[in-house]
């Protein structure tokens, strides 16, 4: 795979309102560095993430999509993230089955106290997506022409 | 590159008038400030806001108005919501005119006319009424029966009061569905009012309004003995192309966008009842 040195990926991070969004906030207040290419979208619970959102993020130019939610067992709504876990596992498996790079999608559990983990996760994910290069297999060319 | 009929021209909304709580009248001119095209009363045009959608509206201004086009638009869906939220100066896209229009210079000429409208149904008739007023000597007596839910829902109320009612040979009969304190006019539904007014059966009737109004008014007119070839109405169906191709407004062997929207009752009798 060709690695483009200047390639800056667009990464969409869907963050649960209760844990991961607060974790991102903490990362910010602690001045932990993570790439500005990460666009955070706050959702009420990781379980709110409709698979359509992920596909539409790719359509609109995302090169990688990550979902962050409360750790299993810690969901604000008790069990939301358990359902999200099954859904995302199956969806990612399906994307992989269609030949879409399996590294472009990820789920990480990040609590409100884990600012450092949030920054680390984003650094790692952006690095992975940068290595993969531009999203080609799930792109909508209409949205890429300027 | 040849110009395709599906590609619209740009136009600008210069004035927006709030007629009733849910009807606004937009004044539209071309980018050169002039009226974009000529039309016949009853014809329609496609207005669109890119990204929202395109929809067909009847042109409510009279062809005798040489400065601009007007559209009276009731808020009832995606495109109309957007048009209602618009401010003067906004550009829109426009294509047209479409449809057959009313036979103002042929069948209507010299006739005594009765216009029957309900609610936003006045919109397409306003164009004819103002045309008839302009060429007053070409037509006989004119009666306008117009009804709405309430006084506030009467479209063009000021124009009706200030201009139409004051014209010689034109009688305006307004009615609202329910009594209200500041209303001393007629109260009741349009079909009953038309019956009460007992027009001469030799007159030509032009109708536009909600289907239920049309249905009962027609029943009344039939009872009074009006011939079916003296009654005109307009149809409304979903349209995308306005060129008789996209297939939505197809009723029998007619396309409402091209062969309509104005039909005589005896013509409608020949068509499947799918409108």
């Amino acid at each position, binding site marked *: 795979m060709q690695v483009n040195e200047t390639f800056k990926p667009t990464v969409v991070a869907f963050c649960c309102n209760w844990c991961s969004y607060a974790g991102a906030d903490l990362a910010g207040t602690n001045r932990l560095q993570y790439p500005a290419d990460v666009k955070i979208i706050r959702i009420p619970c990781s379980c709110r993430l409709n698979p359509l959102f992920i596909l539409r993020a790719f359509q609109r130019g995302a090169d990688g999509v990550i979902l962050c939610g409360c750790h299993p067992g810690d969901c604000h709504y008790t069990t939301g993230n358990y359902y999200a876990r099954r859904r995302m596992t199956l969806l990612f498996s399906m994307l992989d089955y269609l030949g879409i790079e399996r590294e472009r999608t990820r789920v990480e559990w990040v609590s409100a106290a884990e600012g450092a983990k949030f920054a680390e996760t984003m650094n790692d994910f952006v690095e992975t997506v940068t290595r993969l290069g531009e999203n080609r297999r799930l792109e909508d060319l209409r949205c890429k022409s300027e | *590159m040849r110009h395709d009929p599906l590609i619209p021209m740009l136009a600008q909304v210069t004035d927006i008038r709030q007629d009733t709580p849910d009807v606004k009248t937009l004044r539209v001119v071309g980018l050169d400030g002039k009226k974009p095209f000529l039309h016949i009363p009853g014809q329609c045009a496609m207005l669109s806001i890119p990204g929202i959608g395109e929809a067909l509206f009847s042109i409510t201004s009279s062809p005798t108005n040489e400065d601009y086009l007007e559209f009276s638009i009731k808020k009832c*869906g995606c495109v109309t919501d957007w048009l209602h939220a618009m401010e003067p100066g906004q550009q829109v896209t426009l294509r047209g005119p479409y449809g057959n229009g009313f036979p103002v210079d042929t069948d209507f000429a010299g006739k005594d006319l009765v216009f029957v409208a309900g609610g936003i149904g006045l919109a397409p008739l306003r164009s004819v009424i103002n045309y008839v007023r302009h060429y007053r000597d070409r037509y006989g007596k004119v009666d306008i029966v117009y009804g709405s839910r309430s006084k506030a829902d009467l479209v063009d109320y000021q124009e009706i009061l200030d201009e139409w009612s004051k014209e010689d040979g034109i009688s305006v009969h307004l009615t609202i569905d329910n009594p209200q304190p500041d209303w001393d006019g007629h109260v009741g539904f349009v079909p009953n009012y038309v019956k009460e007014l007992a027009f001469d059966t030799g007159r030509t009737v032009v109708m536009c309004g909600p289907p239920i109004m049309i249905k009962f008014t027609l029943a009344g007119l039939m009872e009074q003995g009006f011939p079916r070839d003296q009654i005109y109405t307009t149809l409304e169906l979903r349209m995308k192309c306005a060129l008789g191709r996209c*297939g939505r407004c197809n009723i029998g062997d007619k396309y409402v966008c091209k062969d309509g929207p104005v039909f005589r009752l005896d013509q409608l009798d020949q068509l*499947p009842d*799918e409108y």
Partner: protein
Amino acid sequence: MKKLPLSQLDAFFAALAAGQELYIPAGDAGTAAFTPWREGLKLTPALNTSRSAKDLFFPQVENLVDFKVTGKQIEIIENRAPAKPFVIFGVRACDCRSFDILDKVFLADPADTYYKTRRENGTIVTLACTEPEETCFCTALGIDPANPAGDVSGWIAEDTLYLQANTGKGSALLETLPMLEEGEKPELDQPVFDRLPLKDLDWSAFGGERMMEHFNSPKWASLAESCLGCGSCTFVCPTCQCYDIKDFNTGSEIKRFRCWDSCMYSDFTLMSAGQPRPTQLERFRQRFMHKLVYYPSTHEGEFGCVGCGRCLQKCPISMNIVKVAGTLGKEETP
């Protein structure tokens, strides 16, 4: 008339493709499609393509115009791809007739310039049928599958392809192909056309007349009852031409595109004011009334059907124009 040994077909295709894009029917039975020719691509063994040849003139999706919206300003950006000449080889007689039907819709004033440009740039080379399917009924609609029309008519007999130019465009095309020799096609005896099960289809009950009688027939209810409301019949049909116009917001501009639509869909006629065709019965009836009655009534009795049999093969529940016409056309038993 020109001829060419079939052994030279590849060279013939290569020569055709040198001057313009060439489409030939390729692929397996069931999925065959008009495909841009490339080295090694072979003609399909199937009688006809799964989708019809209309796609090349009236594609499923096409961009009409772009808009850029900035504040209250709108900019119209016409960026139509420049027209390129192309040849379609191997169009069957039925599909070739469908172009006449589509022409009457799209070329009527004011002409649809997207369609018109493609029609002007496309040269149609037809191919006579030798092995019809049991679902074929073009002969019942007055089409001769053994002598197809087109800019160039083609026949394959024994090991030879015969070509006859019918139009100026056709002659001009054949003149560019040096490998063609002069030759006369032998008389072909094709008794199979007389054995087709649907050859005696009688549609005399239809046409522009008796519109209201057919429309009001009580038989529609049972005909339409199992219709799934999908669009497969309309999308594989060579004469279905309904479309939708939609806007797609790319984030930086609006693309207004046209795509096929189907009168079988529940939202086809849905308006904020109501739904003139509220159930599948009305939608189903619309499609068949249009082909059998409405279109003929405005086009000198010509049916909006060419007998290609695609809807017979593709309908998920096997309800099709032959069954509809058969049921409706049958005289009432007292």
